[in-house]
């Protein structure tokens, strides 16, 4: 198996795009209405905590990823079971991400194009990227990230220039107290998007300069959080809290408001670019995390699986729900509680305890053999 490496800057851009990914498409923290941005600001703090937790977990045994850690913690048979569960989890999330994108395109951009084709094309692209490896994914996101900043900046300028952004829309701040903010925070905002950083436990070990890894990861969370916060702020001041809650894709709706001199109009394409980049990176990272699980189980390079698995993801992205409402409800009511919480915090905590215990045992009896990693 080829040893792969990604640089720190690639890690940074991967993190930013990953966190923005579908969160910027569907909008997060809507429960808090006008104070959604406060909820996001608070969730960044939790994001730091979550990142620290995963880093701490991974750095216990240098160079080992989540699945290899499981082998240390629970022995291989159990680790295979867990890694398969994780593979399914990650691939399911990849399908959800692709579905988000498919719904966006099908309902707002190309209504007569079948969603199957949309999800097939983006999955083919992901398969190709992952076939070439993580390094290519890193470079892809590194190249396109400046455009993301550029477009977001442009969008802001245009929204303010066209007079659609009314800063007074955010008042009253915290009018109904802290309760709606807390409701938005627990657990939705914590597990999505920050809890999904669990996928990075497969990427962090292959970063070249592991020494600075933590710093860069936290910086990535901070930048992505700030962008999310800013995007939410922008959406609130352009759409107002009511329209924001009614929009399926608030970012797109706010971009549609831009109209300068009947000339600069319909700049949806900028937003679709931001979303497409986020979705591509996020979907690929999830798919990579899933593929790594297969690699661990079958002891074959993961890139052999990339095309078939991408096709499975593509098919499931269409099959996971019958309609948009189904998809939405599943994502808000089922996934956070039944999937995210145990997979993001339950199992990893268990694993951390097991690994720490094993390490202590090993330290206590330095002479003994048998602990082969």
């Amino acid at each position, binding site marked *: 198996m080829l040893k792969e490496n990604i640089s720190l800057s690639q890690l940074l851009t991967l993190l930013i795009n990953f966190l923005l990914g579908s969160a910027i498409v569907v909008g997060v923290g809507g429960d808090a209405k006008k104070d959604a941005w406060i909820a996001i600001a608070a969730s960044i703090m939790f994001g730091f905590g979550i990142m620290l937790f995963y880093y701490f977990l991974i750095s216990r045994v240098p160079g080992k990823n989540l699945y290899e850690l499981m082998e240390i913690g629970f022995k291989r048979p159990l680790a295979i079971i867990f890694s398969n569960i994780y593979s399914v989890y990650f691939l399911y999330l990849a399908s959800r991400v692709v579905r988000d994108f498919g719904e966006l395109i099908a*309902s707002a951009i190309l209504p007569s194009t079948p969603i199957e084709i949309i999800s097939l094309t983006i999955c083919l692209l992901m398969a190709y990227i992952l076939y070439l490896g993580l390094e290519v994914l890193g470079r892809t996101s590194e190249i396109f990230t400046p455009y993301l900043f550029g477009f977001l900046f442009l969008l802001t300028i245009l929204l303010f220039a066209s007079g659609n952004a009314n800063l007074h829309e955010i008042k009253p701040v915290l009018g109904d107290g802290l309760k709606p903010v807390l409701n938005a925070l627990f657990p939705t905002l914590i597990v999505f998007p920050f809890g999904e950083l669990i996928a990075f436990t497969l990427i962090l070990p292959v970063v070249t300069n592991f020494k600075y890894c933590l710093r860069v990861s936290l910086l990535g969370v901070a930048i992505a959080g700030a962008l999310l916060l800013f995007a939410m702020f922008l959406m609130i001041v352009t759409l*107002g809290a009511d*329209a924001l809650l009614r929009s399926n894709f608030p970012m797109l709706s706010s971009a549609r*408001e831009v109209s300068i001199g009947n000339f600069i109009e*319909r700049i949806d394409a900028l937003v679709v670019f931001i979303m497409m980049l986020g979705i591509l990176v996020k979907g690929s990272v999830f798919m990579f995390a899933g593929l790594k699980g297969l690699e661990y189980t079958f002891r074959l390079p993961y890139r052999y699986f990339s095309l078939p698995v991408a096709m499975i993801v593509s098919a499931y992205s269409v099959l996971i729900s019958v309609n948009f409402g189904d998809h939405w409800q599943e994502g808000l009511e089922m996934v956070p509680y039944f999937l995210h919480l145990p997979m993001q915090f339950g199992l990893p905590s268990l694993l951390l305890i097991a690994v720490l215990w094993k390490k202590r045992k090993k330290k206590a009896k330095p002479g003994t053999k048998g602990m082969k990693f």
Partner: protein
Amino acid sequence: MKKCGVMSAILLAAILLAGCWDQRELGEITVVTGMAVDKGENDKYILTVEGINATELNNRTASGFAPSIVYSAEGNSLAELTYRVNEGMSRHLIYSHMRTLIIGEELAKEGIIDFIDFLERNREIRDDFNILIAREAKGSDVLKVTYQFQKSTSLKLHTQLDTMMKDWGGDPGVRMNDVITAWTAPGRQPVMAAVRIKGDPEAGASSENMMKVTPDALVVLDSLAIFKGDKLEGFLTLEDSRNYLWIQNKIVKTSITAECSENKYMGLRVYDTRTKIKGKLENGKARIKIMIRAEAYIDGTHCNDQFDKAKTYEENGEIAQKQINDMVTKTIEKVQKEYGTDIFGFGEVVLRQDYQNFKKVRNNWDEKFADADIQVDTTLIIRRTGIRTKSFLKEVK
């Protein structure tokens, strides 16, 4: 093996690059610029669309045919009707460039809220078109009237309202999303501009109407339609419409007339103005303070004022100040007494500035608005007087 790869690459490229299902050629479409919705005779709505004939809009290619085609269809949902109108029109209709939506008065009086959902939900239709009420007329008749310059009424109205708002302020500058926000958000009721047909609607519907110096029919901006909830409540004058804009801090430029001495008037051009509103609830009574700050220049006077003295500026400024105070107060009082519906969004102001108290009166804010204590305070500064100081009127023999 290699051949196979090349073949599959070509195949894939053919499938992936061929384009999508949503393409439309320019020759197959008609652009819809205006839409009118009226109360149906048998069904709920009559939808009228105006599709433009692009060759007639261009002066070089125009050959004197009608600049647009207007067609109506009747049915219960707009979503279906927008496609049903093809029973009379040949090409695909593209709604993304729609500029004007006209609602018949009859429909507005009965409550119009439900078809707006379609307009907001549809991906193709932008939500920032003008939304108007056809006063004492059918929306479809308004759409049919031709006009010399923009040729089609919907384009004419779009330009006209824009000009009006920039130069004087008769159009409330309301777009569809403003109307929806006013419906949904607490503390504000919607308004719309109202238009009327001056002349004979029948005669207006031909291209001969464009050839006359005084057209047989002309669509004129008439008044401000105000709503209570989803129902049309009444009309205010165009003057009120300007005062409404003033309260909304949306005036770009405007002109006012003030009486400088008995039966003698002066005109002022207000070119820079800002409005701040403060609102709070005191013992259950709403107190609204409107502070207007304006800069103006004298644009004509009947009085023999000496505009080379600073004092004259001040005196005239005070007269104008009082005039603005009176105008704005009168408009607000009229709405308070006759309609009792908060079109000015004072509720929103109170919501932002005094949320804890507003929560208690949220559901009956309109009552609180009706007996609110309104105070208007204007500061107007006259900066200059055109290119003359003293008026020649004094020298007239």
